[in-house]
């Protein structure tokens, strides 16, 4: 139930990205953001299917992929549980880095920059540094 509330899978059938990869990416995203952490149970295949209408085999395949990467582990009869977190201290809701970024964004807005301008600038700097 915990996982179900925190990970709300959204499938975009037209994206061209394989459905199971979309699931994998969304779980990783949730792990990165710290929305789910070690010990949390992922939604069961049935829960995901009931919400998204996708093939349960796809859900199982995504979970197998996450298991292969060592992120989750199945516990027979109980479900699939998160093994390790991908969250780094910087991305948590109350981290100072996040506060800095918020501040920076507010300034950009005051300067009259639009979403696309911010995105372009952010991406340019991101590419420069990473």
């Amino acid at each position: 139930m915990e996982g179900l509330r925190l990970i709300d899978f959204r499938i975009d059938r037209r994206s061209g990205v394989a459905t199971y990869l979309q699931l994998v990416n969304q779980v990783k995203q949730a792990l990165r953001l710290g929305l789910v952490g070690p010990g949390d149970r992922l939604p069961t295949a049935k829960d995901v299917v009931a919400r998204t209408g996708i093939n349960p085999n796809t859900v199982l395949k995504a979970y197998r992929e996450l298991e292969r990467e060592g992120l989750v582990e199945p516990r027979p009869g109980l479900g699939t549980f998160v093994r390790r977190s991908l969250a780094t201290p910087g991305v948590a809701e109350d981290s100072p880095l996040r506060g800095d970024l918020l501040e920076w964004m507010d300034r950009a807005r005051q300067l009259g920059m639009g979403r696309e301008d911010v995105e372009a600038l952010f991406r340019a700097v991101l590419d420069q540094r990473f």
Partner: protein
Amino acid sequence: MSDPGVAVRAEGLGLRRRRGWALRDCSFELPAGSVTALVGANGAGKSTLLKIAAGLLRPSEGAVATRGSVGFVAQDKPLYRGFTVAEMLRFGRVTNAEDWDDTYARQLVGEAALPLSAKVNRLSGGERARLALVLALARRPDVLLLDEPLSEMDPVAREDVLRTLMVAVAETGVTVVLSTHVVSDLDGVCDHLLLLDRGVVQLAGEVEELLDNHRVVLAGRGDLGDHQVILGRGGEHRGTTLVRVTGELDVPEELVSAPGLEELVIAYLRANRGVAA
């Protein structure tokens, strides 16, 4: 069936009709718990294949074996028009005896919000399809065969039907085969593909694997060496080509992309027709 992982196995299946073969030399295996899209143009033999697998038609040659009980929803979802929803459930109960799970049937009818006292001919197309699906599911089949379950259905009904079906797959592990001639309906729903064209299996296998084995290349067929060209549009050294990859492609990476399911299916259907549009 010897291999417990196989739910449906066809071997050399053929059906001869007065005007020729409706189905010929069909051999394939579908693993238990898989959801297969049976794709092909109208008249490709999809309904024939499903009816044979459901035991409603006898093949002229070969055989199809299914593991466990088989549920079938025919094209146009036939139901008794004058019956109410409750009477259709009673139909299921009396024609299936102990194979019928009445609790499950009522649960599914409730989820579909079908009023028990409504007459079948007052239901919408989508509601009728869901009722037909309920009748098939409540028998708790091991293999469920659905002939064009989504045709003439609005997007909401389509999503509801697929969701019901997928939940059933998740709950019971039922093996599903759905036929369609609109491939995009089933993108993301199916994990296996069975492509029929004029009674012959053109392509069969796991969707991801099939997509992995094929590439769309921005080059002519002359540039592709030993790879099997499925369909080329354009000339010998330019154009778009769909190839079945058998090793490394000797083509710059930026010219290569993965095909979508629909693209793949259409390429095979076109190729077989000898029409390079």
